[in-house]
């Protein structure tokens, strides 16, 4: 018969590994930390009685925090998705925008009638008012979103940089004017002056239901420098951020429609 206690203790003693290197490394790390912090605090004191630890409670707290974080992440993702979806819906209301531009006669070369202000002194008479308008009437020509109709456009500042790089949204009327003048010229309007943004007219009354209601429309006007006839230009901003002419009509009592963009017509 063998002594149980002696045999068992001896057996365990034979299995004891050399832990000195680990202990020494731990001591060195502690000393380095103590030097760095300048304190002699210890993280967990050695106690002569077992501390009352409730691992279940800790696990619950961690679990709750994890769940809250997961829910918050889901809400953020959902909010971002809804926002992008709403924006995409509103901008996709003019699906034929690209087709309209392609169907409209284009004049890719810069026409004489839309030279920049630095060339105003050399420009023909009819372009001078435009140049002046760019310089002097900047504040009044600044694009002002109309309540309701342009609400989605107002959301553009909250877009992320990557989104705003994809969707070019003209903020000012000047941006739209750069797109509209060549189109007007291609339609035969060459003697344009006083080309300004109209923010006081009833926009929808100018469309005569020719244009779909779900298209976001804006209105500008200009005067023929030769005949002094005034015209309204109903336009929209397509998915690429470029302005497309929808309707050109006289601003007098007749209200004759001189041009309708076939790509935006009511089906």
């Amino acid at each position, binding site marked *: *018969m*063998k*002594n*149980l*206690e*002696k*045999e*068992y*203790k001896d*057996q*365990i*003693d034979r*299995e*004891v*590994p050399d*832990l*000195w290197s*680990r*202990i*020494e490394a*731990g*001591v060195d790390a*502690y*000393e380095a930390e103590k030097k760095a912090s300048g304190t002699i605090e*210890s993280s*967990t*004191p*050695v*106690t*002569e*009685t*077992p*501390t009352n*630890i409730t*691992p*279940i409670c800790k696990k619950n707290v961690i679990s709750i925090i994890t769940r809250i974080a997961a829910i918050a992440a889901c809400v953020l993702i959902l909010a971002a998705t809804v926002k992008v979806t709403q924006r995409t819906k509103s901008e996709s209301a003019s699906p034929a925008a690209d087709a309209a531009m392609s169907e409209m006669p284009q004049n890719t070369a810069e026409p004489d009638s839309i030279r920049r202000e630095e060339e105003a002194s050399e420009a023909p008479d009819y372009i001078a008012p435009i140049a002046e308008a760019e310089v002097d009437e900047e504040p009044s020509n600044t694009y002002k979103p109309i309540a309701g109709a342009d609400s989605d456009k107002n959301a553009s500042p909250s877009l992320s940089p990557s989104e705003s790089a994809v969707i070019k949204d003209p903020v000012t009327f000047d941006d739209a004017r750069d797109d509209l003048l060549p189109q007007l010229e291609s339609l035969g309007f060459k003697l344009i002056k006083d080309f300004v943004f109209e923010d006081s007219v009833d926009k929808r009354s100018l469309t005569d239901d020719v244009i779909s209601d779900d298209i976001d429309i804006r209105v500008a006007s200009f005067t023929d420098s030769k005949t002094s006839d005034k015209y309204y230009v109903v336009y929209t901003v397509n998915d690429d951020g470029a302005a497309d002419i929808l309707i050109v009509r006289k601003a007098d009592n007749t209200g004759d429609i001189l041009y309708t963009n076939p790509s935006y017509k009511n089906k």
Partner: protein
Amino acid sequence: MTEATFDACIQAILKGDKQGLRDIYDAYLDYIYRIVYGVVGSREDAEDITSEFFIKLWQQADRYKAGSGHKAYLATIARNMAIDHTRKYKKEVLESFTQESDDDVVIEPVSSDNTEAEVIEDIAIKEAIGKLNPKEQQIINMKILSEMTFQEISDILKCPMGTVTWRYREAIKKLRRYGYYEES
């Protein structure tokens, strides 16, 4: 190691001399490891806790009161660290003792006839211990390796002391059949 020697080692530690810790390590590594192993029952955990024990001894050497019985002091700290570890990471082990069913209480009966005293198989101690059920192993480990009283084991396992002593006796009977006796 005498009390005076141990006190000198603590003084060396307080001065930042690692040799003081090394001397305690050389004298008590086996003892501490055995106590810890008796509670946690795992070599890996026992190594971790034993290492941590000596590091904490270095960190909190100033808390030791000279002449207060260093061996009991070391054993108490080692035991408590092991118990804390078990409560943290092995709660299910402790719970298994508190959720006993009637089936758990009925352990493989050991005959009380004359064959009880016979050695039926001469095997190594590790193998013999391995033939006990886990609950018996834990009580044997705590009693023999960690040198705990039945009351301490009962408190830790949250199990009636009568059950602890009964299990211990059953385990001793089984071990006797493998050639091991308990020195009373």
